């Protein structure tokens, strides 16, 4: 059957992103600039265009291509947010990658391929297609983590991420196989129908087992406890620009897929999994925060903090409600902005090679570079959840959703965790303002500075005027479709 023109239009963002990735791959071969500034900008333009055309299709909320992808509110929200966050991280990378002494022209097409995979994950209404998206993304990110070819820890990061990622993929695929065994189809509507029907006991056990294994796979990708063990090493070993990308953008795609499958399609059974999700959420934030307390490396601290934020995000998934999904989507925007900003500042300050990764490198920044210190303070306070910054609004909405869903205790756990997190985020502020400066910290990189400025501005704007993004997240959560089932 010939796909109609309308169907092509509906996957236009995906097609454009794929085509653009190939185009950038070829263009990079002819790039004579060793810093690849032009290639970087080409990537940004491409991502901007993808975001531009990623509107939810009016009538086209129908599933397309034999119902394996849906261009609904969720897809377009996630695509646009993905592109926005990636654009900022690419802008930062333009200066950062040459600064570390790597000729990283391949960085840009790889980022685009990862984005393609993430869009597929968000849009997929078929388990196998979702898996394809996941693997497309993962392969690109495995390579990205090893971009510092000559650095042991970057190689270690790539290998560790690859081995554990492959293992998690196996779990996920097995989960999908079990779901197929029950539903007789990998299409989400069929799976949803099977989940909603009255299954015999052994079948429903199989279904639950399938969902649990699926959750293991997702848990690995988002770094949930106890599948978080790779995060600190990989985040620390990967180039900082890649860490920024991984901790924000990759998480976004994985959570989008999680919402579509676990929260919406498997809603009838995910009620049985509430306790498991609840415990995972509580454990993730607690472990992340407590371990972060002891870190002396800022990059590692942010890695554990990202684990903790995964825990907060899982609150929304635990709710299993539309409000919960909207809160997760909104929190991902706020978290993306503040994390990108923090990594951006880190990249600005870092020198050749390893860079300013220890917290003590920031001593006295308040005096030696007041603007950067102020920006870092804004990021740290936002990550703590101090109003009126983005992180506060994100938490406010998440807590509201959780209270509405009746998870008062989980909110109390999250609140206590926020207090713990204040201790280490505040530690950075303390070092910057209360300690004496050691040496003059020179910040360099025009693109980096602009990227960081955009991210910091977003942190403030999402705190003071979150209305537009809140509406978008709510619409996205309200218009999730599964397919023609």
């Amino acid at each position, binding site marked *: 059957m010939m796909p109609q023109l309308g169907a092509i239009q509906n996957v236009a963002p995906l097609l454009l992103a794929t085509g653009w990735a190939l185009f950038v791959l070829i263009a990079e071969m002819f790039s004579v600039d060793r810093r690849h500034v032009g290639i970087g900008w080409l990537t940004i333009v491409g991502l901007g265009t993808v975001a531009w055309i990623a509107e939810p299709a009016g009538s086209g909320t129908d599933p397309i291509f034999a119902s394996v992808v849906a261009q609904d509110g969720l897809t377009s929200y996630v695509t646009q947010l993905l592109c926005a966050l990636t654009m900022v991280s690419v802008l930062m990378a333009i200066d950062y990658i040459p600064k570390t002494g790597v000729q990283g022209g391949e960085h840009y097409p790889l980022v685009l391929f990862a984005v393609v995979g993430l869009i597929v994950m968000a849009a997929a209404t078929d388990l196998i297609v979702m898996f394809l998206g996941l693997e497309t993304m993962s392969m690109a990110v495995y390579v990205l983590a090893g971009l510092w070819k000559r650095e042991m820890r970057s190689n270690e990061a790539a290998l560790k991420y690859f081995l554990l990622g492959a293992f998690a993929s196996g779990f996920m695929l097995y989960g999908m196989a079990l779901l197929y065994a029950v539903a007789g189809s990998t299409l989400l509507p069929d799976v949803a129908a099977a989940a909603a029907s009255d299954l015999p006991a052994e079948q429903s056990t199989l279904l639950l087992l399938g969902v649990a294994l699926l959750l293991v796979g997702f848990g690995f990708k988002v770094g949930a406890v106890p599948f978080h063990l790779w995060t600190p090493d990989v985040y620390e070993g990967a180039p900082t620009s890649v860490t920024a990308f991984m901790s924000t953008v990759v998480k976004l795609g994985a959570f989008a897929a999680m919402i579509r499958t676990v929260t919406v399609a498997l809603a009838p059974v995910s009620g049985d999994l509430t306790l498991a999700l609840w415990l995972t959420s509580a454990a993730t934030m607690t472990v992340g925060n407590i371990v972060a307390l002891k870190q002396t490396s800022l990059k590692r601290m942010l890695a554990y903090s990202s684990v903790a934020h995964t825990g907060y995000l899982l609150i929304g998934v635990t709710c299993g409600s539309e409000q919960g999904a909207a809160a997760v989507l909104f929190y991902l925007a706020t978290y993306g902005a503040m994390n990108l900003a923090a990594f951006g500042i880190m990249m600005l300050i870092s020198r050749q090679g390893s860079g300013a990764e220890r917290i003590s490198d920031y001593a006295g920044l308040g005096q030696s570079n007041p603007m950067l210190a102020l920006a870092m303070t804004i990021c740290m306070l936002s990550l703590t959840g101090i109003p009126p910054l983005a992180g506060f609004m994100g938490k406010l909405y998440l807590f*509201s959703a959780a*209270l509405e869903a009746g998870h008062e205790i989980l909110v109390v756990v999250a609140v206590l965790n926020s207090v713990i997190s204040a201790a280490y985020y505040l530690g950075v502020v303390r070092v910057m*303002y209360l300690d004496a400066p050691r040496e003059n910290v020179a910040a360099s990189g025009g693109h980096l500075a602009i990227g960081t400025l955009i991210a910091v501005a977003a942190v403030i704007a999402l705190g003071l005027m979150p209305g537009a993004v809140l509406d978008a997240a709510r619409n996205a959560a309200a218009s999730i479709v599964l397919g023609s089932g």
Partner: protein
Amino acid sequence: MYGLLTTMILSPAAAAILLAVVPPGATVLLRRLALLASLVPFGLSVAVWSAYDPAIAGFQLVERTTWISQLGISYYLGLDGISLLLVMLTTLLTPLVLLAAPDQIHTRLKAYLISMLLLETTMLGTLVALDLILFYVFWELMLIPMFLIIGIWGGDRRVYAAIKFFLFTMVGSLPMLAGIIYMGLSYGAQPDLGGSPSFALTDLYGLVLSNSAQFWVCLAMILAFAIKVPMWPLHTWLPDAHVEAPTGGSVILAGVLLKMGTYGFVRFVMPLFPDVLPVFMPWIGTLAVIGIIYGALVAMVQPDMKKLVAYSSVSHLGFVMLGIASMNVIGVSGAVYQMIGHGLSTGALFLLVGMIYERRHTRMIADFGGLWRQVPMYASCFLIVTLASIGLPGLNGFIGEFMIIVGTFQTHPGLTAFAVSGVVLGAVYMLWMYQRVMFGPLENPENEKLTDMTPREMCVIGPLLLLIVIMGVYPKPFLERIETSVAATVERATATAVVERPSARVPELKVAHAETVSTGDNR
């Protein structure tokens, strides 16, 4: 006068931005600019005072627009007699602290002035915010400048003290946030109240929660405010913060920040949870009395003057909390009066201790003695403030304490008996310190070089002494503003006896309003 409150709370922040572009080397310019800028909010608060009608109990100068409509959060400002006086206290203390700054701050003056001005914005915002989320925003923001003030310009253990201060307050305020969200959502879940979430205080008055929900939400708020006050046994951050903070920081901390806790009790806890207050108030009263006696006893044995004043705050704020626990108009009015009185006298005490510390670089009582002859002006000012602090009739401390004791005696006579002993102990530690520092022979040769107060220092202390006397002799303009607002609050807090509250409470309030308005006409 729409927009007056917004202008007032934003003016110090605007001044801070202005200061940020001045080069840090231009200290004289910075000082003068900061001082002039801090007179703007003071002038605006005087305008607020004159625009305020003392005969009306409700909120005045209200500004209300939606902020984040999706979550039901509004930008809602307004003030009543209780917040009005605290606003005045804030706008008065800030210029005095900035005026005194050059004597106390010897490094990074620009950053200090900016922090103080930003702190003023957040304090004023906390006092006039009537949307609970907006209140929370200012409440949390207040921590950051204070954290920096203690952490950068404090004593040897400043970093420890600053972090302890921040984390203690945060432990209290985050559960409060959960409680606030719960209330806002419950409001939205009650279809007869409009069906959408709201965090506006006046909307939440109408909220009906089950007793168990009220219990937990109220407990969360009590925890937040009790840490801020601080009530025994949650006071341990206070001596550290006070001892390490620079003088200006201590003045604002004792003068205004601690009052945010007691203010929170009067503004939020009392009217919002009438059904569970009878459960909590006896406990609060008991802890308050323990705080009064404990604070006084610990203050008595302090060798360090600043630490003595810090522990005296624990004792005095115990009195304020006792007044609030009385739940009647006279007791709560006395508590509010005592908040202002304590702000003035303890602020003055910290400033005076700071002045002697700048000269001698010690605050140990044992290092002094016989200062009366050497620095007579200083000693006289110190005497007035000491007497105000122990509640001598004719000075401000007496009226507040007296009203609290009268009010509490009606409801908790047993507790009052213990509390009165706190008055005696207060006299003991303050007068004993005064005697050891000022009287006797001048034995330490170091002290012979001491100079008396400079004109600038007199300008700093003068306004405080004047107000201490005025509030002691002629309390009427203050009390008439306090009492109408307190009466309305107490009425809400004690409305629990009525069985069908939601329908019965609203007409009651209307009657109350009608009465106050009619008395206004009769005047």
